[in-house]
C-alpha cells in the first residue's frame, strides 16, 4: 500500500506538470460549462417538469469531466508510457505491476473528485445551481463507481490503440459522438427517442443518468439500475484489460 501511495505521488506530480493533461482534463470541462451556461443560460430544459439549463449542464459537465479524468486520461497516458518503453522498464524492477496501475487509477479518481468539487462550486457560485448536500453520499458513490468503471474501460481501450499518435483520435472518436448522443452536450428533451435508445447501449448514457439523478433537485439519490449498468461495463473493461493489456511497445 505504501508503494501505491509512492507511485501515486509521482503520478500526481507528472499529471499537474503536463500541460495537455491539465488543459484537457481540468480546464476544458470548465470552459465547456462556461460556454453552455453563457449560450443557453436563461432557457429551461424540459426534463423533470422543467429545470434551468444551467441546472442541467452542471451535472452533465461533471459527468464529462469524470470520464475525461479517467477513461480518456488513462488511455492516453498509458499508451504514451507503453510506447515510450516506461511500462516495460517498470516491469524490470521489483515493483509489482498492479502497483503501477493502482497508482494511475488512484490519480484518476482523485482528479475526478477534484473536478466534482470545482464544477459544483462554479455551478453554485456563478449560476446558483444548488449542491444537494443531503445526497452527498449518493453523489460520491455514483462518481466513484463511475470513475472506477471508466478507468477499467480506459485501460482496456489501450489494447486497441497501436501508437501514441493514434491515441487522441481513437479516444475522441469514441467519446465525442457519445457525449452528443447521451445528452451530455444536447439536453435530452431535444434528442429523438431513437437516439437515446441507441445511447442506452453504452456506458456514458447510464453514468450520466445516474449522476444526473443524484445531483438535480427532486432526483432519486442512487439510481441503482443505471449504476449497475455502468459497473457491468466496468467489469467487462476489467476482464478485457486483464486479457489484452500489454506492457511492451507495439512499435519499434
Amino acid at each position, binding site marked *: 500500500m505504501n508503494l501505491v501511495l509512492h507511485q501515486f505521488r509521482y503520478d500526481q506530480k*507528472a499529471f499537474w506538470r503536463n500541460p495537455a493533461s491539465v488543459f484537457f482534463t481540468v480546464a476544458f470541462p470548465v470552459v465547456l460549462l462556461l460556454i453552455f451556461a453563457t449560450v443557453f443560460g436563461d432557457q429551461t430544459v424540459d426534463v423533470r417538469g422543467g429545470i434551468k439549463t444551467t441546472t442541467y449542464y452542471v451535472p452533465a459537465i461533471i459527468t464529462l469531466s469524470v470520464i475525461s479524468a479517467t477513461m480518456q486520461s488513462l488511455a492516453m497516458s498509458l499508451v504514451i508510457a507503453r510506447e515510450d518503453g516506461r511500462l516495460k522498464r517498470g516491469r*524490470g524492477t521489483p515493483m509489482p505491476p498492479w502497483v503501477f496501475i493502482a497508482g494511475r487509477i488512484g490519480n484518476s479518481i482523485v482528479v475526478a473528485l477534484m473536478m466534482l468539487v470545482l464544477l459544483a462550486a462554479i455551478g453554485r457560485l456563478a449560476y446558483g445551481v444548488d449542491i444537494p448536500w443531503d445526497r452527498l453520499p449518493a453523489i460520491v458513490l455514483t462518481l466513484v463507481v463511475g470513475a472506477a468503471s471508466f478507468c477499467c474501460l480506459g485501460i482496456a481501450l489501450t489494447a486497441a490503440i497501436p501508437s501514441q499518435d493514434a491515441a487522441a483520435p481513437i479516444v475522441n472518436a469514441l467519446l465525442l459522438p457519445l457525449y452528443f448522443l447521451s445528452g451530455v452536450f444536447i439536453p435530452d428533451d431535444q434528442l429523438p427517442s431513437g437516439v437515446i435508445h441507441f445511447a442506452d447501449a453504452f456506458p456514458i448514457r447510464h453514468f450520466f443518468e445516474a449522476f444526473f439523478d443524484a445531483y438535480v433537485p427532486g432526483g432519486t439519490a442512487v439510481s441503482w439500475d443505471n449504476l449497475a449498468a455502468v459497473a457491468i461495463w466496468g467489469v467487462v473493461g476489467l476482464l478485457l484489460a486483464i486479457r489484452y493489456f500489454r506492457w511492451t511497445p507495439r512499435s519499434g
Partner: protein
Amino acid sequence: MSDPVISIRGLRKSYGDVEAVRGIDLEVRRGEVFAFLGPNGAGKTTTVEILEGYRKRSAGEVSVLGEDPEHAGRAWRERVGIVLQSCRLDPYLTVRESLALYAGYYDAPRPIDETIELVGLAGKADARASSLSGGQQRRLDVGMALIGDPELLFLDEPTTGFDPSARRQAWETIAGLRDLGKTVFLTTHYMDEAQRLADRVTVISGGEVVARGTPEDLGDRENRPARITYREEGREVELETTTPVQTLNELTGRALAEGRDLEGLEVTRPSLEDVYLELTEQT
C-alpha cells in the same frame, strides 16, 4: 572461483519459422564487463531480453544469478538493473524525482545524490528529463538501473545514436561501474565500445557465436597475416605475410643493397574493426 553470474547452454529462440538465436553458450563472471557484440539483427536483444526475463526461450538452459529468469520473482529483480535499448523517461519528472521514484521500488536503494554524482548529472539534479540531452537522458536511465544497487547490470546498446562526446561520457560512466564491483552485460554493435569497456567479448552473427575472447586476442588477431605496403617506381605493392619481421628484413635489405627507397612503407595488422567485419559478414 565463484559461480558464474550468467550461464547459458544451447539457448534457442524462434519466432514462427525464423530462428533468431541458434544455440548460444556463454558464461559471465562476477565483476567483469562482458560485451555481447554483433550487427543489428544478430539476436543480441532477443538474447538479452531472455536473460532479463522479458522473453521466453524456445530451448536451452539459462541461469542468471542462480535463477531461471523466466520464473524469477521480486527478490531476483532486487539484484538486477536494466537499461533498455530504447526507453524515454517521464519528461515531467526531474532527475532527482525520477531516481526517487525508482528508489521507492527497492528494499535497499543507493543514496540518490551519490547516484546522481555517479552518472555525472550533479549539475542537472533538478532539471526535468525533457530538458536533458540524449546522452544525459541515457545516463539518467543508467542511474535508474543502478538505484536499487544491483549486482548485475544489463545495458542494451547504451550509446547507439550518440555523438562522440556523449559516447565518451557514457563510456566513463560505464567504466566507473566496474570499480563498483558490478557485473555488466553490455550489448553493442560498436567494436570500439567493446574494445574500450569490456574484459571479455563474445561476437554473434546470425544467432550464433562466431568468436569469443578478450578484446586483444579476439579472432586470433595476433596470428593473422600482417600487410606490408610500399610504392616502387610509382606502383603500389602489397604483400601479406605471417612472418613480417623476416619479410621486412629481406625487403629492406634488398632495397638498401640496390640503393633504392621504399616509398610510403607501412606495416599493418588487421584492426579489430577488420576482424569484426570479417567475422560478422553475412553469407
